[in-house]
């Protein structure tokens, strides 16, 4: 297939996901239009190993075949809606999936040598739901090995590059998915979050990234890293793309005992100006719903936690945040200074708990049931040879760290202590939201995307997650959206909401995205 884009390709790639699916459902575009354009765009930007390295595995012929097979889902009557509950919500929309989410046919390697060539015999619930809505998986995307990293430099298949500036990292661990969206290959991609692995790369690449509430989205088929923190998240070119994808993948699943049996609100409706800000259950005094025609965020209280704006914050990042807060005020929100006093403990807590859980979860990669097996003299030698050569340096480091903090004599000092401090971090969120705050606004990251190879000290890399790991520890939903640029590099703003209050989070994000307009890139 030619690598050059046609004018029609450019038109389809520029369409929001909902617009593309409407065009296909209404027979105004063939079911293959979006997928063909996506594949040609991937070739044009060099998404593979020799270029951006955002895509690890793909099968263009299979993707085109899947798109052609969607013809029987076309609306029987022109103009019939393709919206929620129709099975055509993402009709013909190309999507990319992080390589730690199980897919049939394409490999699932978690960016690791130990799973090289592994193809899952079942599919993740989130992928099955996307396919059921008519989406077509065009690629599995690069990632830090087993999602351990903040730059996608820890992939066994080489680092992914940031499409905004190819000398810089796209963030991580879901850097390949973020880069695929930022490069215009897809409008929607799935990632996974344990400490910020969707929001941080979204911020670095200038797109939208969403981590839902713990329990909002099924993890069946997500390869486990740290089970008390892991969530599947979504990337979108815009808030609407991300909200559409989240509507599809959210909701209870009997195959995941941690998934919550709660209704999923129509998140895209949060864009409508006349949808009221929800009165807070825990707030002192109910807030009056906003009337149609009023400022869209009237009645919403946005907290500005001082711990996320330290003296050391890059003043240029602070300036973009101040501008975004000013826009939120202009939209009718009340911006209130608040405090989350245990924020600075989040990274030490996270880097005890996550490796501890990883050391247990990754015990299954032993050369017995799947993946790599290397020979040795007997069973123990096989385990050690397989694991020491199958895992890369960061995964090895974290397994050792996790084993250490769980081992006899150190458990109370490290693991139990970290679990106690996690309670305090979680309590911070509960207290601030109970005080009458609907959402929090913070920078997503302290800096813009850093150059490849810039962070060789492990702990310095861990600090990339300083503003994002808190939401994982507390289990609350959070979203990053572009709020400006510094020296041409994107700056992300983060909106954090109470448990299962994604609707309010999307409402603030839709309004802010619209108010910033072109400023989001400047």
């Amino acid at each position: 297939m030619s690598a050059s884009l046609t004018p029609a390709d450019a038109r389809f790639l520029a369409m929001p996901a909902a617009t593309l699916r409407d065009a296909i459902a209404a027979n105004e575009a063939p079911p293959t239009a979006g997928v063909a354009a996506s594949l040609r765009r991937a070739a044009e930007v060099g998404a593979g190993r020799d270029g951006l390295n955002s895509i690890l595995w793909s099968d263009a012929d299979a993707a085109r075949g899947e798109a052609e097979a969607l013809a029987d889902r076309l609306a029987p009557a022109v103009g019939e809606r393709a919206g929620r509950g129709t099975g055509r919500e993402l009709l013909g929309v190309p999507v990319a999936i992080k390589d730690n989410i199980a897919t049939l046919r394409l490999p699932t390697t978690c960016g690791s040598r130990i799973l090289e060539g592994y193809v899952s015999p079942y599919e993740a619930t989130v992928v099955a739901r996307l396919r059921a809505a008519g989406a077509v998986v065009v690629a599995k995307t690069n990632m830090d090995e087993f999602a351990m990293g903040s730059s996608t430099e820890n992939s066994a298949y080489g680092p992914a590059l940031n499409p905004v500036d190819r000398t810089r990292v796209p963030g991580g661990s879901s850097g390949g998915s973020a880069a695929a969206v930022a490069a215009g290959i897809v409008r929607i991609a799935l990632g996974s979050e344990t400490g910020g692995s969707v929001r941080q790369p979204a911020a670095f690449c200038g797109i939208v990234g969403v981590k839902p509430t713990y329990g909002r989205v099924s993890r069946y088929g997500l390869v486990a890293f740290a089970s008390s923190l892991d969530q599947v998240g979504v990337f979108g070119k815009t808030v609407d793309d991300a909200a559409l994808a989240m509507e599809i993948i959210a909701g209870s699943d009997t195959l995941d005992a941690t998934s919550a049996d709660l209704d999923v609100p129509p998140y895209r409706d949060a864009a409508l100006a006349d949808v009221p800000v929800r009165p807070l259950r825990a707030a002192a005094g109910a807030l009056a719903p906003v009337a149609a025609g009023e400022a869209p965020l009237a009645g919403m209280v946005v907290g500005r936690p001082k711990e996320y704006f330290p003296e050391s914050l890059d003043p240029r990042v602070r300036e973009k945040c101040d501008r975004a807060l000013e826009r939120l005020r202009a939209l009718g929100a009340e911006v209130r200074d608040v405090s989350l006093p245990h924020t600075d403990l989040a990274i030490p807590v996270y880097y005890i708990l996550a490796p501890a859980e990883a050391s247990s979860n990754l015990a299954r990669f032993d050369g017995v049931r799947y993946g790599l097996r290397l020979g040795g003299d007997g069973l123990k030698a096989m385990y050690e040879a397989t694991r020491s050569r199958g895992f890369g340096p960061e995964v090895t480091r974290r397994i050792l760290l996790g084993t250490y903090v769980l081992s006899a004599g150190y458990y109370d000092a490290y693991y139990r202590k970290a679990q106690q401090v996690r309670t305090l971090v979680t309590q911070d969120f509960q207290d601030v939201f109970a005080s009458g705050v609907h959402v929090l606004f913070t920078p997503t990251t302290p800096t813009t995307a850093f150059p490849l190879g810039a962070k060789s000290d492990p702990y310095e890399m861990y600090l990339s997650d300083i503003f994002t790991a808190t939401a994982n520890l507390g289990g609350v939903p959070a979203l990053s959206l572009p709020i400006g640029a510094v020296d041409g590099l994107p700056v992300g703003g983060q909106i954090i909401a109470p448990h299962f209050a994604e609707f309010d989070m999307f409402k603030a994000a839709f309004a802010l995205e619209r108010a910033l307009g072109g400023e989001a890139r400047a």
Partner: protein
Amino acid sequence: MAVTEQDLRHIAALARLGLPAERVGPLVRELNGILEHMAVLQKVDTATVDPAVSVGAVAMPLRSDEGPQIPLARARAAFAPAMTDGFFLVPRLATHAALGTSPDDSSVDDELDADLVEAE
């Protein structure tokens, strides 16, 4: 509570990770470099704080232990490194190489005394 080389070899054995000798020194320094940042937690008064045991209020609902088997698109033999007769095939334990002799390795392997592991 600095990690020593002996500690590192012990936890590597627990984690079934073979470490080349040249990696031991650097890894000890890396782990100690990371752990020194964790010392801040010891200053936090948690005397009356319970450890976190769950995330949120809704997760982990109980359900009946029934339901259809999850169909697999491919047989286990298609992705397991080695299978025979429905069992995962693994190398014989070194301690069993010569039956009747005394094991020369009393490590924690010994609970696994079969060379066939039943598939779930």
